[in-house]
């Protein structure tokens, strides 16, 4: 049987408390969904509000001709609105995040495909506008940078940048920016074949700067705003020359996807008016898009990443101090359990292709829409809400508001942290309470079990001197204690009755025995001839034997009563035993082999009844002599060990059968063979134990080590 103590069982029950945090976790997760929904609605409201601001204001979109969706061309150049002017120095840092996101704005197209090796040219680019200028940045990957050799008149003999400009009158002008060395590039108006400049004078209004990079180069470009009007079409291309000897243009990679190289795309400059309105709505963590009917971005403000070290606290929570305190201890645990939302994540600034087309489609149909998606790097979940912008019931465009769910995750984490903190405390308190309770309970049960175990002494007799604990308690343990107590009381009565039984029996038998005895006597006196009869003597003999049996039956009972009332005195056990043995040798001349005694020199003072100790020794020596093998002496020793007098009586002879060592001292147990001349009821060793116990001592019997005899050992406490 597996033993599991109540303490551990209760501990297991306490573990069910762990359901509380689990429940809480589930609840918090549910809440997150609600919170996200709430936020979506809030976003939708925001989108709606912004849309309302933009309603019926076609002029906002009018800075640019609204192109029907069908006219949409992939080669269109989208221009990002900058918030500061840029320096033409080839350095990318003033482009900020735009430089990092360069290349996400469109896919370069080959205007001239190279022969065998396609992959040695690629670029990323971005366009921006600030004030009266249009800026462009090209980050070109080129395995071989070739500078202009000024000894040639032709300009297409080195790596260069081509600008295609076509105004509203469909007049095409072409410019090339070439670099003879890193730094400011020379810009020329070019002929149709891109070979020679139309005039020898460079164009100074277009500024271009060349800066070699590790595996290529960067070109910054600034075009004055007056060159690029509403209907201007613009394309920019990179021409690559690799072979210094041949100086042949191998690849031309451009922004336009038009069917031929001379068909540049439109320039899409976000409406400054919308931008201005939206700037007022800019808040951290939110990104607002305005798109027109053609799904082109008209304006974009805000940044999805939330500022670092933001402290989103549960407002109205009074657990702040508790939380801080718990954070100190449980910080590592929290870090394991909770996903702290990243504050930095990458997302595409404005690439419509990766946006949820369904949302945009739906909103341009005139229905507000919401959606969720993961950020491009899968680090955060983004919420978006879109609302259409109307002008005279005609859909002009849409507002898309995006926001990361980070603050919801944050909120969830806060809740979880609080939950964990509260759970830990509740767990500790409840656990402590239950453990205390269990400890008390088991202690009481153990005490009761110990007490009831001790209620019966090793001899199998009841001792109720102390009573059981908890009998006054009003609970089940009290009931148990009371019922055990009652049981023991009834058992005590019964045991007492059994113990008194021989005495009562002897008493009752005594009277008829006395009748027989006195009748025999009177018979003998009245009829002297009968007195001489052998039958008379046998009858007397029988009566005497019966008498001695009855006497030994009552002896134990009498002794017990006597021991209870006996006056105790201090005496020298050593001297007493010496006298006893001496007397024994005198009074048992027939026991010729005698005794081997071993007594200490010093006094051994005991407190008790010397008469009874003598009676005990008498029984032990009698027993030893009875079981002693012929011509073997009885050994007898006294020693002191641990404040106890140890009396050993040893005889060589028959050994004890197994299992008899304990029972030997019970009343009416005798190993003597029936038919021996003396009448024995097996009370002798019982009396030995009664006396030893009454003196606070113990007695036991065992076979000697050699296995050819028996040792009786009595231990009595010293005075």
């Amino acid at each position, binding site marked *: 049987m597996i033993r599991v103590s109540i303490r551990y069982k209760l501990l297991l029950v306490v573990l069910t408390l762990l359901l509380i945090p689990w429940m809480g976790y589930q609840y918090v997760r549910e809440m997150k969904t609600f919170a996200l929904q709430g936020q979506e609605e809030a976003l939708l409201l925001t989108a709606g509000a912004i849309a309302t601001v933009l309603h019926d204001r076609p002029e906002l979109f009018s800075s640019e001709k609204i192109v029907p969706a069908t006219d949409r061309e992939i080669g269109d150049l989208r221009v990002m609105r900058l918030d500061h002017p840029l320096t033409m120095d080839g350095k990318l840092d003033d482009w900020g995040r735009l430089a990092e996101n360069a290349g996400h704005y469109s896919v370069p197209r080959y205007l001239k495909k190279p022969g065998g090796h396609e992959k040695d040219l690629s670029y990323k680019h971005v366009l921006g506008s600030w004030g009266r200028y249009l800026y462009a940045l090209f980050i070109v990957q080129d395995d071989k940078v070739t500078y202009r050799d000024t000894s040639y008149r032709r300009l297409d003999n080195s790596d260069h940048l081509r600008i295609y400009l076509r105004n509203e009158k469909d007049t095409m002008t072409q410019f090339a920016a070439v670099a003879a060395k890193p730094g400011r590039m020379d810009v020329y108006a070019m002929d149709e074949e891109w070979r020679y400049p139309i005039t020898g004078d460079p164009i100074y209004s277009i500024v271009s700067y060349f800066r070699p990079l590790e595996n290529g180069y960067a070109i910054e470009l600034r075009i004055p705003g007056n060159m690029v009007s509403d209907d201007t079409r613009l394309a920019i291309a990179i021409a690559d020359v690799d072979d210094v000897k041949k100086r042949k243009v191998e690849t031309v990679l451009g922004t336009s996807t038009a069917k031929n190289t001379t068909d540049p795309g439109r320039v899409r400059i976000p409406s400054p008016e919308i931008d201005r309105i939206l700037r007022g709505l800019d808040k951290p963590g939110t990104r607002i898009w305005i798109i027109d009917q053609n799904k082109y971005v008209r304006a974009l403000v805000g940044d999805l990443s939330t500022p670092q070290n933001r402290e989103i606290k549960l407002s109205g929570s009074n657990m702040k101090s508790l939380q801080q305190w718990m954070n100190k201890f449980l910080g590592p645990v929290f870090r394991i359990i909770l996903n702290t939302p990243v504050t930095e994540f990458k997302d595409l600034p404005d690439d419509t292709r990766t946006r949820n087309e369904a949302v945009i489609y739906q909103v341009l149909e005139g229905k507000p829409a919401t959606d969720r998606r993961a950020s491009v790097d899968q680090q955060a979940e983004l919420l978006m809400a879109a609302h259409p912008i109307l002008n005279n019931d005609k859909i002009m465009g849409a507002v898309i508001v995006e926001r990361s769910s980070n603050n919801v995750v944050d909120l969830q984490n806060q809740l979880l942290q609080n939950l964990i903190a509260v759970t830990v405390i509740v767990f500790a308190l409840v656990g402590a309470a239950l453990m205390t309770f269990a400890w008390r309970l088991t202690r009481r049960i153990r005490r009761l079990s110990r007490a009831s175990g001790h209620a019966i002494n090793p001899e199998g007799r009841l001792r109720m001197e102390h009573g059981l604990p908890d009998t006054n308690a009003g609970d089940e343990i009290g009931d148990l204690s009371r019922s055990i107590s009652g049981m023991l009381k009834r058992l005590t009565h019964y045991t007492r009755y059994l113990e008194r039984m021989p005495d009562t029996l002897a008493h009752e038998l005594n009277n008829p025995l006395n009748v027989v005895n*006195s009748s025999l*006597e009177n018979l003998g006196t009245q009829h002297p001839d009968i007195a001489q009869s052998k039958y008379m003597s046998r009858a007397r003999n029988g009566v005497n034997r019966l008498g001695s049996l009855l*006497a030994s039956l009552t002896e134990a009972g009498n002794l017990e009563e*006597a021991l209870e009332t006996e006056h105790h005195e201090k005496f020298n056990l050593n001297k007493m035993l010496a*006298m*006893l043995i001496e007397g024994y040798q005198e009074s048992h001349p027939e026991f010729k082999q005698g005794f081997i005694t071993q007594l200490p020199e010093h006094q051994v003072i005991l407190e008790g009844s010397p008469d009874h100790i003598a009676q005990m*020794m008498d029984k032990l020596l009698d027993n030893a002599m009875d079981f002693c093998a012929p011509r073997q002496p009885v050994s007898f020793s006294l020693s002191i060990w641990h404040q106890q007098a140890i009396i050993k009586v040893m005889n060589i002879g028959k050994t004890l059968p197994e299992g008899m060592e304990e029972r030997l001292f019970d009343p009416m147990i005798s190993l003597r063979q029936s038919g021996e001349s003396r009448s024995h009821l097996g009370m002798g060793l019982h009396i030995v134990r009664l006396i030893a116990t009454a003196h606070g001592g113990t007695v036991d019997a065992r076979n000697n080590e050699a296995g050819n005899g028996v040792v009786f050992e009595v231990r009595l406490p010293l005075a």
Partner: protein
Amino acid sequence: MSRKIAIVEDDPDQRENYADAMTMHGFEVTTYPNRPEALKGFKNELPDLAILDIMLEDEPDGGFDLCRELRSMSRNLPIIFLTARDNDIDTVSGLRLDAWDYLTKPVNLQYLAVRVSSLFRIVDTLSARTVDEDKVYRLGDLMVDQQSMSIAWKGQPLNLTLTEYWLVESMSRHPGHVRTYDHMMQVTRQSMVERNTINGYIRRIRNKFKAQDSKFDAIQTVFGVGYRWKA
């Protein structure tokens, strides 16, 4: 005139056997089965000696009660208790019933007769109020009057029962010599005597001496053998 003995014993067979034996020894015997009848009889005529069983019919201590009542009628009437257990003797001593002797069952009728005769002799001696110096011997502080079967210690008489007298007399007769248990068993003139019985007698004797003289130590225990009177 023959002496009158009252026997109070609830068992008719034993009662009649005692009566027969006593009659044979020349005593006049009246028997009673219980306390009320005995009391009625005693009020009619007081016996010269009473033999009382302790347990009388439904009264476990009927003998003791009867003894008290008898004592109130006569201070010097010899009373012999018939007891079944040694402990009863202690009880009798504890109750200070002034019994003259105890006899444990089974009763030897021969010894009973001896006891009765001895007690009558004591009564006679006491009534004569004379001391036969020939029958008196002294041993230190001890004085033994064999005539009145009485003992005195340091001049003070001791109230010993007949059996106790016999034991002290036996020990003091051979001071310094061990009286073995076997010998002392004979001295008590009882049929069934255990070593414990002897120990009990000696204990009570010592207590009686010590009641008078707390330094009394004339009776020495020879453990396992017996007792001796210190020379």
